[in-house]
């Protein structure tokens, strides 16, 4: 895992799991299809990425499919940053 994946994964854990939740998450765990993140709370993830990486993610890029795993999210971030 590179740095983007690590940052996003630790944000997801803190933001979406309760303290007593022992769900194991890695960069390939489904987030939305598993019900951990829903289409509403997903806005918090988008806000975090935009603030953290100083980017603007167009709504059509922030789809439930594109945001379903940390690896996919990191790919969107990298692409928008242009590296």
């Amino acid at each position, binding site marked *: 895992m590179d740095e983007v994946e690590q940052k996003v994964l630790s944000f997801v854990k803190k933001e979406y799991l309760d303290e007593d939740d022992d769900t194991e998450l890695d960069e390939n765990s489904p987030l939305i299809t598993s*019900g951990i993140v829903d289409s509403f*709370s997903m*806005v918090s993830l988008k806000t975090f990425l935009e603030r953290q990486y100083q980017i603007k993610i167009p709504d059509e890029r922030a789809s439930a499919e594109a945001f379903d795993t940390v690896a996919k999210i990191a790919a969107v971030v990298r692409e928008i940053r242009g590296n």
Partner: protein
Amino acid sequence: MAYSEARRAAYQADLAGIREAGLFKEERIIHTAQSADVEVEFPAGESARPVINMCANNYLGLSSHPEVVKAAHAGLDARGYGLSSVRFICGTQDIHRELEHRISAFLETEDTILFGSCLDANAGVFEAVLTEQDIMIADRLVHASIVDGMRLSKAQQETYKHMDLEHLEEKLQESQDKRIRLIVTDGVFSMDGDIAELDKICDLADKYDALVFVDDSHATGFMGKRGKGTHEHCGVLGRIDILTTTLGKALGGASGGCVSGRREIVELCRQKARPYLFSNTVPPVITAAANRVIQILSETTERRDKLEENTLYWRRRLKEIGLDIREGSHPIVPVMLYNAKLAQEVARDMFAEGIFVVGFFFPVVAKGQARIRTQISAGHERHHLDKGLAAFEKVGKKHGILGMGKKEIVEKFGL
């Protein structure tokens, strides 16, 4: 033909998918007026049978109350059936203004504007009063109509974990660069009966210079000692900037909703909220009856007191029987079953025992949180509750869940 056979087949496949996922909703047909005792046809085609209704939002038992029905008749006679107009053209009668004034006085707010429903109020208010310089920070379990309303606004959307005020505080800290921070919550959450800690939320709003929005649909009329709602219950009358609520639950249960709160915000809704500007006025018959409802509630707390007593009894006895209920004090009392199939089976068995309740499971509630949501009413008499309790005891015994907590139920039935 544009609606071709292929198009029809595609829609039919969508519907089949919903059925296969176990998410197809069948309506139960009631052959009586709404009340504690109803006659229900289910499944469709069966003859209707008498059951006790424990799943209506008829918290105060006013849906078919003779006084309310009488006021509706009088309103119909005096102001007619329809107005065929939106409010701002020729759809505002004296009784509409009267109702807005009565609601403001009852809720102890500055002003009120009626909408066709609370869904409409929630759909309109965020877009009308916020801009792209603002941020809305919402509890993750707010009602679907709030989610939709937020999406229609240009303001930034943020969420915090359900009832987690530390998390909310973080989000408030992070958004200090915004013009307006609006905290968004339900007063009472409809699936759990959880009551938002509005006192602490208002304190945070003061500390971080934020406004507070509360949807009090499941509280107006009975929460708080005088039944004003969650803001009275939490001791924050006068501190809620935007309060939306419905006439479709405790307040007679017909339809209609409103935005109540700061004068300027209400006026902005009158000028700008699209569901207000572009949809018909609330019909005179409902407006007149709602005036009577608010009048009754302002005169006596008898009904909310009875509801409170019924709720205490129901909660205490369910626990004594050995069912796992979600703790709290609200007349929404979820009987937790965790497993979706078990919830459906228990609901079906309860119906066979003459008790009308409904099972809820994912995606309506989180995965592994399936339940029967029972709802208590001031229209219930002790014999209704006792019959409901006897049925729960019998059905609980049949499934072997009495005395079990989450761990045991999940071990026995899976998630």
